[in-house]
């Protein structure tokens, strides 16, 4: 299986790309062309690689990166002009960029969408204003912020005074930066960023901590903008505040869109190449209409090719000539598997009837100790019938309404515990409060005797709580396989994933193989390479459940598993849940459907108006007069 997942070797493409980028230095000594190559090629590629992780990865649109770039360039220039070695220039620039990145990134955590874009825009404008204003404040009205002749880097005996040498230097520096950014997209960290982009709440129930993810992406992009600033500082013989305009932030974003947003390599590389062409065309043929040309390309991309040049290239026969270009290892593994896989019965008739067998086989195989086909053979689950999850006196109000008002119950290990009750009785609120997506006003939540009450959602997820949602929360921007892999966190820290060490790459393959096996066990194997949004409703529900179960949670919260499903899918869902119990999982299920409850539940807790009104085995609860009152109206129990 591992060889299947390994896919195509891709490093020759990288070398070839680097070689192509270096060719201009051999062909020409024309300072104008080399200047274009340095400024709009190498420097842009570095900035775009960072922005791609930020915008393509976490979906945070920054319109203020020119502020970071300019601040970094100035920090570098002042250090360089003081006669210090170039490496210190770079260090100063990156440090300044990280500092500005923190100043922008921290408040930006609280905002998103247009408000984030606007806040970053304001920060960018502010930074540019300050760069030109501060020297005047410090040294009087006549002072300027112009810095001249920042020294170029010195490599041993070679001083990179000419543009040719500096171009080579910049490209050689840009290549590893693009590779780093690509590694982000090829790692579990990258998938986590995209999960945060698609849905923060669902991401946190998978154990993803939102703040480090967003801030990390911001700082990564800031650091790259800082390095680009350092290169720019010692490139331009005359650094003045006029070199930086607020529009440049927007130009960065346009260039990234031209290259292809979230395309790991094509985004920055084709974006930079496109910028060179655009600037050259503009300056050569359109002179004063250069900005018009840029705006036109921007609009054309937005309207007709929102995935940029990278997206267009995916559509060309080039893909067949260069196997594996434009997809991650995981994606090619999924594709390889999908073409190999026997046709699943689900596709033939999307009823789910036969899927049952597949799911049941996969999971009972696991139960019997035949662990090769399931995701987490090592997943030992608690078997003692002790209280596993305990909630005490939970209260949660929304506005003036007490959604739950002092709820207590115990979930025993190995049980399917059903929460039932009429609409608005507080069932889903219970799940939200238990998994930490909503904070309880008072009351406590214990898991295996540990108090989770003060933990945020991602910490509770790591402590062993997983959940599904009534309104399915898959991440539509990712493939089915990538969604499945999100259940399985990486052993490696983010910086090692960034460097993509041998261990990380091996783990990626291993996790992809496991996730493929998981999908096959759940009858979704052949859809591995499809976008999650392509699945049918029932398949999406199954995938969400499979993903949650693959985390090997101590308790799995399942919100309305049968809602919206046709009877045959309901039957598969019931069997899947029973199979999970048989495999040793503990489930807390919110459910309406009486037949489903009768089939599944070991224990039922009935909620009404936020209060527990009955508890016990399903048969007893269904006869309880208070329950009958609630469901059929007062007095119905006494009817003949």
């Amino acid at each position, binding site marked *: 299986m591992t060889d299947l997942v390994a896919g195509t070797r891709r490093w020759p493409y990288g070398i070839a790309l680097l070689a192509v980028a270096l060719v201009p230095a051999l062909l020409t000594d024309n300072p104008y062309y080399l200047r274009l190559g340095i400024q709009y090629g190498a420097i842009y590629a570095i900035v775009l690689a960072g922005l791609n992780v930020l915008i393509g990865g976490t979906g945070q*649109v920054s319109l203020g990166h020119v502020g970071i770039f300019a601040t970094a360039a100035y920090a570098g220039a002042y250090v360089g002009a003081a006669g210090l070695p170039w490496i210190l220039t770079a260090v100063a620039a990156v440090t300044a960029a990280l500092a500005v990145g923190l100043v922008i990134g921290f408040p930006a955590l609280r905002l998103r969408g247009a*408000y984030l874009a*606007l806040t970053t825009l304001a920060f960018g404008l502010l930074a540019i204003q300050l760069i030109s204003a501060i020297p005047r404040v410090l040294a009087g009205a006549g002072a300027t912020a112009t810095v001249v002749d920042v020294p170029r880097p010195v490599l041993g005996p070679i001083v990179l005074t000419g543009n040719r040498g500096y171009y080579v230097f910049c490209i050689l520096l840009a290549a590893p930066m693009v590779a780093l950014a690509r590694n982000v997209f090829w790692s579990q960290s990258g998938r986590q960023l995209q999960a945060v982009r698609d849905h923060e709440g669902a991401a946190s129930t998978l154990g993803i901590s939102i703040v480090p993810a967003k801030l990390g992406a911001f700082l990564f992009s800031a650091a790259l903008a800082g390095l680009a600033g350092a290169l720019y500082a010692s490139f331009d013989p005359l650094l003045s505040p006029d070199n930086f305009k607020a529009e440049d932030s927007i130009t960065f974003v346009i260039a990234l869109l031209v290259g292809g947003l979230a395309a790991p390599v094509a985004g920055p590389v084709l974006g930079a190449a496109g910028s060179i062409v655009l600037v050259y065309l503009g300056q050569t043929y359109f002179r004063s209409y250069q900005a*018009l040309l840029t705006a*036109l390309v921007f*609009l054309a991309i937005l*309207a007709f090719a929102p995935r940029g040049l990278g997206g267009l290239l995916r559509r060309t026969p080039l893909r067949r000539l260069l196997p594996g270009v434009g997809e991650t290892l995981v994606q090619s593994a999924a594709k390889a598997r999908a073409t190999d896989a026997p046709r699943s019965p689900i596709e033939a008739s999307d009823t789910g009837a036969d899927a049952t067998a597949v799911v049941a086989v996969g999971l009972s195989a696991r139960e019997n100790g035949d662990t090769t086909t399931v995701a987490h053979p090592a997943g030992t689950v608690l078997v003692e019938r002790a209280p596993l999850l305990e909630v005490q006196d939970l209260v949660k109000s929304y506005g003036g309404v007490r959604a739950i008002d002092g709820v207590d119950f115990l979930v025993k290990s190995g049980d399917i515990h059903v929460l039932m009750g009429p609409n608005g009785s507080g069932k889903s609120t219970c799940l939200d409060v238990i998994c930490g997506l909503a904070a309880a006003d008072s009351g406590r939540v214990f898991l295996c005797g540990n108090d989770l009450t003060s933990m945020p959602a991602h910490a509770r997820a790591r402590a062993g709580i997983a959940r599904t949602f009534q309104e399915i929360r898959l991440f539509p921007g990712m493939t089915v396989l990538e969604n499945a892999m999100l259940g399985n966190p990486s052993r490696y820290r983010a910086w090692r994933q960034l460097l993509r060490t041998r261990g990380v790459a091996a783990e990626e393959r291993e996790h992809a193989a496991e996730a493929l096996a998981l999908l096959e066990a759940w009858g979704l194997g052949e859809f591995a390479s499809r976008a999650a949004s392509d699945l049918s409703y029932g398949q999406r529900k199954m995938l969400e459940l499979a993903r949650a179960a693959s985390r090997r949670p101590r308790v799995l919260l399942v919100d309305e598993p049968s809602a919206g499903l046709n009877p045959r899918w309901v039957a598969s869902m019931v069997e899947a849940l029973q199979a999970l119990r048989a495999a040793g999982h503990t489930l807390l299920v919110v459910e309406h459907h009486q037949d489903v409850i009768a089939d599944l539940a070991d224990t039922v807790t009935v909620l009404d108006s936020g209060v527990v009104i009955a508890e016990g085995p399903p048969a007893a609860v269904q006869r309880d007069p208070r329950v009958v009152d609630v469901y059929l109206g007062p007095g119905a129990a006494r009817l003949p």
Partner: protein
Amino acid sequence: MSDAVQILVQGLTQGIVYALLAMGLAVVFRTSRVLNFAHGETLVVGVFVTYVLATNPLRPLPYPVAALIGIVVGVGVGLVVYLVAVRGSAAVSGAVLAVMIAALVARSQGGWVWFLGLGVAAASLVLLRGRLQEGLSGSIRWVLGTIAMATLLQEGLVAIIGSTGEAVVVPGPFSGLGTLHVFGVVLPGDQLATAACALILVIALDLLESRTRYGRAMKAVAYNPDAAALMGIDVQRVIYGAFGLAAAVAVVAGLLITPLVSPKPTDGPMYTVVALVAALVGGIDRVRSAALGGIVLGVTEVLLREGLSDIAGGRLLPLRDAFVYVILIVVLLVLPRGIFGTRKVERAT
């Protein structure tokens, strides 16, 4: 004493300019939850159409006629911005692109091969469109879309009028009025008239929002377009109306402030930013709170200017422009609904 009052009057004058700029943004946001980054350009285009029609030496039109045409053109621009940037209409986007390519060809200096390439690229994009992957989703689309339209409008205007940055010195509607002296405070008549018009505009738009079916429909569409449609509201018409109305308000505002600020073809982004700051400071969900935000911003700015020139021998004066952005950042983070606003801002959950 009269000095202080004079400063206050200056601040109010500045504030009225900002208030006029902010109103249109509020109309659009209230209905569609879109921040129109092309607002300033719509204004500038309308003003320059009026200016050219009213002052061209060949056949100058009377001012009211020119202004009316300017407003109509502005409304057209507003609708195109909506169709291209927010709706993502392929037909309108294609038409805009075709016009722009034609304009570029007409104005370029050689390079025909590249135009051929450009045309082929554009045509293949259009042909490929159906097979492309899904587009950008959420706010990123319209943020970038309205910015793209803003750039197109600005550069288009520069291409036609010239980038010399020639300011409009067209007489405003009230240039004939004299000045009023009240207790030693100078009150120029045209500024008073502008203020009066701004007030009338705010009141009219506020009444439209709160007292008419259309106003309630705007709010309903913003809250939940599907539910609004089920209630019999023609959602698209309401949104068209909001963008058209906002563009008309923008051009009227532009014509009113022209004598005070002399717009240049490249001033669009500045107006957009100032309008965004003013509207967000006040509260962008209602015209009157956005307008109040403009007043607050104007008075603050003038007070700040006076204050900064008094302390430290004026050395802090260069920081004056930076304060606008500081105010915006602080308001967005601390008071995201604005000082006078009510609606929740889109924030992280």
